[in-house]
């Protein structure tokens, strides 16, 4: 399962953030939310950022004590708070800024899909956030087809001299 974002629909209301903290902590906040809306007001950008459930999670790889493990079926990163040393390697490693330290508890917090019913999606009034569980998190066939096209192009370019030598057909 993955959560898709449509920036043209997002109003920047941040209901996703308060829905998230309510679900996880029974209170309302922003910096303890696992989804954080980036607002760049001068440019009109509102974009909710949350864990991408990477196939190869750099946050977990960066963790020196293996406190972070991934549930392979959902992609959710599980945090073992008992062994986490609060070193922040995971925050530094995440390419999307989707991994945050809880400001009071000092452990990484990231989207756990609310156990399958993500409250940010439920609360989103403009359908900017939607659940996408129609396909795997990364479509390898699509990716590898793209690679094949690139290989063909590259092979053709590298063979140009040889083809010239052979002359017109």
């Amino acid at each position, binding site marked *: 399962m993955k959560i898709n974002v449509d920036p*043209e*629909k*997002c*109003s*920047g*209301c*941040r*209901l996703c953030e*308060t*829905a998230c*903290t*309510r679900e996880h*902590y*029974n*209170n*309302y*906040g*922003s*910096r*303890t939310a696992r989804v*954080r809306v*980036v*607002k*760049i*007001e*001068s440019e*009109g950008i*509102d974009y909710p950022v949350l864990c991408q459930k990477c196939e190869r999670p750099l946050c977990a790889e960066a963790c020196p004590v293996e406190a972070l493990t991934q549930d392979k079926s959902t992609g959710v990163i599980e945090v073992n708070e008992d062994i986490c040393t609060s070193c922040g390697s995971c925050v530094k490693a995440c390419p999307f800024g989707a991994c945050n330290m809880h*400001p*009071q508890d000092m452990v990484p917090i990231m989207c756990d899909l609310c156990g399958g019913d993500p409250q940010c999606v439920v*609360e989103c*009034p*403009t359908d900017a956030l939607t659940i996408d569980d129609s396909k795997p998190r990364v479509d390898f066939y699509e990716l590898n087809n793209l690679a094949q096209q690139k290989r063909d192009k590259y092979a053709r370019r590298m063979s140009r001299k040889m083809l010239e030598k052979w002359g017109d057909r």
Partner: protein
Amino acid sequence: MVDKYYGFTGKILHVDLSTGETEIEPLSKEMIKDWVGGRGFNMRKLYDMIDDDTDPRGPENPLIFGVGPVNGTNSCMGSRFNVSAKSPHTGILGDSNAGGHLGSEIKYAGYDQIIITGKAEKPIYLFIDDDKVTLEDADGIWGQDVIEAHDLIREDVGDTSVQIAACGPAAENGVSFGAVFANGVRAAGRTGMGTVMASKNMKALVVRGTGTVEAYDDDKFKEWDELISERVLNHPDYESRAWLGTPRNVIPLNEGGYLVTKHFQSGYFPEAEKMSGEELARNYNVKPKACHACSLHCSRWYVVPEDKDFAGLQGEGPEYEAMAGFGSRIYNSNLASILKCNDMVNRVGMDAITTSEVISWLMELYEKGMVTSEEADGLDLSWGNVETTITLIEKIYKREGIGDVLADGVFKAAERLGKGEELAMGVKGLEIIQAEPRGMKGYALTFATATRGADHLRYEPFFEMSEDTELAEERYGLPEPAKRLEEKGKGLLVTDFGEWCALSDCFNVCKNTMVCMEVLEMDEVPDFLYALTGICWTDEEIRDVGRRMITLEYALNNRLGIRREDDKLPKRFTTEPLPEDSRESAGSVVDLDPMLDEFYEARGIDPETAIPLEETCLKLGLDDVAEDLKKLRKNL
């Protein structure tokens, strides 16, 4: 009563900009019970902190930010904040309210109110980083426009998620109606609160809060939240409010003949369709925008298309007030130019309503031959002249030439020019909004009696446009309050809605949802508040909050010299009938005095002096106010 605070943080932060010292004052449970939040907290403090001698631009004038119990939660209305001080524009009660994301951030940082006094030595921004409070050098930020300042401050802090309330160059230059802006465009526009901020050498309030807000009864509060959301989403106005926002008002007001046109010379603008919310949605809007935790998302991001003037201009908004202000009020139907004017006043940081009044007023004086082009720096002041309007906005914010004359509002401008006072469209020094009072009598009474001057948001008697005479009978015992052209019963309507608006400003929720869409009933408020705060209010105690507030606000203005003769309207509205073209509003004038009398009686205010009666004050627990007013009456 519970010991722990729910819905509140329990803390008032005092900051003295002269010394850099801060102090935490605990928020008393009595304060909560009597005043609930936001505007209530602010008005009580303001009453205690200012008097006749307070210089609005002096260090002694407090600049007060207040938020309420709903801020920070995900109840879909509670994004707003109030900012209050003695007004440099009107000399009386100054208070303004805006949405955006600042109000919630103040709560997350751990405060219900922030009271700023003194004056910084050099330009600074005040950074409240949870419990750490610092004055940061605003070198390079001072002088920048509001949107630029937002970007620069975020860069300076190194965190783009901080929330900001900033003033613009207009306020820095001493324009009396400089506004405070959150999120770049959410304007606390009225009564010159930005000017007070700038007079303290303060460019902005910057807040970062890592804390949270807790509800007393999570499950119950969640139920309320869901119910309110449902009511918003199923409301008959939802679609138009969500996709057009407040500019949805242009067409119906015009069709009813009460759209402000040519500076209140008519209620009908033949080209209104071209500057309507519908036209904006069709050809300009690209994305919804919302205040914190609001599912209504009534704001919009626009891009001016290729084939229009100012092609490529983009930004958030505008609201109806700026649309009609730089549209029908100055007889201009070029929508792209309206967006340009709106963008300019936001960036330089001025009240769009007051700006549109001083410009349209000057245009009427020109039309009537009372002002020549030479007196106005050679400008062509013909109706609808966009270039002139843009030049005037520039001149006003820089206080240059004729702009300097206009930069203290319409009454001061009339004084300086020595003419046009009878055409100055304002009350108690504050300019009238984009609604023709002759076409909406409840609003006419509101303009005359609103405690911050001619404004709709103190009492917002939106119900008078409903035509729901049955509900009017039920509520007020007569059908007229549901009819906008009737005077009868409007004193009762305005009294009732005044209490609603007061409460709305205390919760710091949006009046679009709570007052105009009526998504929460008055008798539901105690239960809603109990779930959120764990504090009990009876139905009567909830009603008393609004009564107490308006009584205190009247008393505050009384102390600053306001009397019955100030509760008035410009002569045009009570003597000149709306012209024939004004559709069903044609021929209408305002018969103000009977409405005033009805209002004073319902409010417990002495009709001779417009001073609240002693028994009114005592009944509401305002013993100290009663004492003050007694002294005032003695000196009459």
